[in-house]
């Protein structure tokens, strides 16, 4: 019989220490074994989406922790859930499903808490090859974390302590005798799916399972049997003996990100990954989890005993955010687009460089690979062509997957008086600067929304979006529209977990001056002005690399509007507080 939500799973029962564990297996047993361990209040079905994505490459093993799902509970309950006994269970399962080779362990929530115990005790050595920890700290590390902050409560550390103390309210509640059980078996279990849907924004599905009331009631003993003991006397030898991948969701309502600040001390071979999501990532972000688990396990597996064969993807402070993610940048053959593509590539992202200049885009992709992107491709596409963009989106979705970060950057410049600007000029500017962004959001944004696993859209607006100018009417109009579009989209897509950012760079030394059109002047004067503008921008000398850095930071910090250069900041402030001065500035002649 197969478990609900785990179609085609082979089931077996493993007896150990008076309990019977329900173990499900998927995929070819000859492949490396990945053990997925669920948390509280869950059963192994919490992993169904991730397991589905891993089964082709790995021998995926899931089991219900004692007292949960279809595993039996120990008698008596008190004292039956200690980490020592849970370690016995894990070893029994590991010996049953993979007697010869060590297994790769992945834990979420209490599964991860258990996992930390397994990888820090001696008797599991050579039974575990790697550990991926999601939203579950080691109780011992946690204990030391609290003790250190109590011993020296600087304001920052005290705030960290209080913050996590507030997030742990349910832990105190679960220590009340009997009441939690009664509550779970009564009204809470019925309401729980709704609570999850509302607070965690989980997609509807066959989760949680029917065993929830008993899982939650029995699981309370996980806390009661372990938390107080470990908080009082945390082990001082809790060092991980395997490589650890730590996946931290930033929006976790139960665990502060600060808990992992000292983790490098305990886990010498640590790889950090961060994603903007809430606590139940195995349900809300299965694609990303499966990708990171696959990458980590494969690297470890190829390396054998000596350590990872390949270096972890990405370098620099943003690697934990973007390693392995799919990023598409338009206008990537030069300037800000190209620099942004490189910055993402350096952080280990998979990059798609889009531009109508095919050679330039190809060059960007080539250098992106050299600078650290595990994969990079170039696509020739005119963003102003709606049909072409739709074809591109379909092609990207089919060949590379759904884009995680979309950077709508392609833009052209146009300067000159409004009365000299022809209809064609207007069309050209709006087609690229505005319609290009609309097409990007329409096609790739829709894919993000349909996948339902979040994403981020970055639109390149301009400081001209909030500073009017007598000689930039068309350009400023297009960019102001992009700014407003971004703000509206941000509001609309927030409920789907998709973030939208508008970047307003300011005067940046890019090739836009070389291709900009100056209307109302003869050809020779046009050339002269381009050269003059290019020299002026060169003299200002603000490098596109800094804008790229601002793009990455904006995605990480989820900012709505990001002015980049000092003048962009100044103009933004001016537009808010001194609008008349700003209008006066708009009447000045540009120095060309």
């Amino acid at each position: 019989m197969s478990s609900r939500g785990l179609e085609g799973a082979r089931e077996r029962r493993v007896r150990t220490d008076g309990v019977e564990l329900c173990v499900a297996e998927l995929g070819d047993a000859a492949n490396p074994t990945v053990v997925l361990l669920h948390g509280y209040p869950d059963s192994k079905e919490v992993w169904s989406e991730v397991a589905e994505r891993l089964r082709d490459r790995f021998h995926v093993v899931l089991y219900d922790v004692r007292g949960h799902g279809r595993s039996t509970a120990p008698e008596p309950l008190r004292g039956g859930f200690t980490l020592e006994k849970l370690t016995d269970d894990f070893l029994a399962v590991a010996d049953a499903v993979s007697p010869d080779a060590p297994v790769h362990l992945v834990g979420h929530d209490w599964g991860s808490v258990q996992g930390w115990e397994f990888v820090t005790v001696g008797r599991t050595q050579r039974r575990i090859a790697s550990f991926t920890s999601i939203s579950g700290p080691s109780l011992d590390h946690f204990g030391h974390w609290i003790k250190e902050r109590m011993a020296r409560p600087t304001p920052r550390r005290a705030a960290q302590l209080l913050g996590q103390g507030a997030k742990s309210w349910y832990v105190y509640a679960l220590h009340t005798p009997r009441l939690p059980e009664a509550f779970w078996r009564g009204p809470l279990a019925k309401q729980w799916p709704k609570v999850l849907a509302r607070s965690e924004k989980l997609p509807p599905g066959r989760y949680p399972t029917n065993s929830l009331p008993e899982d939650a009631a029995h699981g309370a003993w996980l806390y009661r049997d372990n938390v107080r003991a470990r908080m009082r006397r945390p082990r001082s030898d809790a060092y991980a003996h395997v490589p650890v991948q730590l996946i931290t969701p930033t929006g976790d309502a139960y665990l502060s990100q600060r808990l992992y600040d000292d983790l490098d001390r305990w886990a010498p071979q640590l790889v950090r990954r961060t994603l903007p999501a809430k606590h139940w990532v195995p349900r809300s972000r299965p694609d990303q989890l499966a990708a990171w688990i696959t990458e980590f396990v494969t690297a470890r597996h190829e390396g054998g005993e000596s350590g990872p064969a390949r270096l972890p993807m990405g370098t620099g402070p943003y690697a934990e955010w973007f390693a392995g993610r799919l990023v598409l940048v338009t206008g990537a053959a030069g300037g800000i687009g190209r620099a942004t593509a490189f910055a993402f590539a350096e952080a280990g992202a998979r990059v798609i460089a889009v531009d109508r200049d095919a050679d330039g885009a190809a060059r960007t992709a080539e250098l992106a690979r050299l600078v650290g992107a595990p994969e990079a491709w170039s696509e020739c596409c005119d963003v102003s062509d709606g049909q072409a963009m739709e074809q591109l989106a379909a092609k990207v979705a089919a060949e590379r997957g759904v884009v995680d970060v979309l950077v709508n950057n392609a833009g052209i410049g146009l300067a000159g008086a409004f009365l000299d600007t022809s209809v064609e000029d207007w069309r050209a500017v709006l087609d690229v600067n505005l319609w290009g962004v609309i097409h990007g959001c329409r096609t790739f944004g829709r894919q993000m929304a349909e996948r339902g696993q979040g994403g981020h859209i970055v639109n390149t607006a301009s400081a001209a979006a909030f500073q009017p100018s007598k000689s930039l009417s068309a350009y400023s109009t297009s960019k102001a529209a992009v700014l407003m579009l971004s703000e509206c989209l941000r509001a609309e897509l927030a409920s789907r977990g998709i973030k939208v950012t508008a970047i307003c760079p300011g005067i940046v030394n890019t090739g836009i001056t070389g291709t900009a059109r100056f209307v109302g002047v003869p050809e020779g004067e046009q050339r002269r002005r381009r050269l003059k503008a290019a020299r002026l921008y060169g003299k200002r000398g603000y490098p596109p690399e800094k804008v790229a850095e601002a793009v990455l930071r904006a995605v990480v910090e989820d900012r709505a509007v990001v002015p980049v250069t000092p003048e962009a900041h100044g103009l933004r402030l001016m537009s808010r507080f001194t609008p008349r001065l700003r209008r006066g500035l708009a009447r000045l002649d540009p120095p060309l």
Partner: protein
Amino acid sequence: MASGVTDEAELRGFRVVQQLAYECAEAVAAQLGPGVTEREAARMQREWLRRRGVRDWFHLPFAWFGDRTAFTGFRVPLQFFPTDRRLEPGMPFVLDMAPVHRGFTADIGYTGALGPNPLLERLLADLEAHRDLVLREVRKRRPLREIYEDVERLMVRQGYVNRHRAYPFGVIAHKVHRVKERRLAPQLFGFGTQALKGLASDALHGHREGWSPLWSPYRFSDHPPRPGLWAVEPHLGFRGTGAKFEELLVVTDSRDPEESAFWLDDDLPHVRRWREERAAV
């Protein structure tokens, strides 16, 4: 002044010292290993050349390792001087030296990496286009400032950043001369006083006649190439990796385009490298 160099014997003298400097670079590069500091690498160059009779310098040898090859975070010229940065496997390095030998000056730049570095290899391969571009445009007698901008445009098109802009006055090249051999050859901020004297006198002449011994992006370089020897040093940067070559370009006042400008020597490590790569393809 050595402004109209056409004398074959004189060119031979420059060629000899340029070969000597590149020999030094290759010898020192071969000795670099993990843990060697920039200071040590600079001293190795200095001693190698002193043993072969170099007593005076256009400038003392420099060595840059890691992201210092791209002049990351350079704000003041003092940062060009060698530091205690240690070489690590995979790191790029640049050796830059300008010895004066028997009165002839060379100024060369040599880029390499400790072990394989595919990114640096890409940069080095892409430098070839700049060597061709500079020669082609100089033969056309285009203003130096415009050539400078064309080189920069090519760098941007290639995806790189112009890092010679970090040099004093942002120069891509400067003139070099024969200098008088003196018993004492003092230096000022790492530059030989004799060489500085030559530059200063050129600058003075140039100022009167409307040209400059410094090939920069500024208005004072808005003139056709001036006959003489130019040490040309395009320097590419890409996210913490830099690559350059530096060698002498001979500019004459001949009307024949082939004769009007030519690289002093085509038998240099980077040129040989490109030839070999092409042969391999």
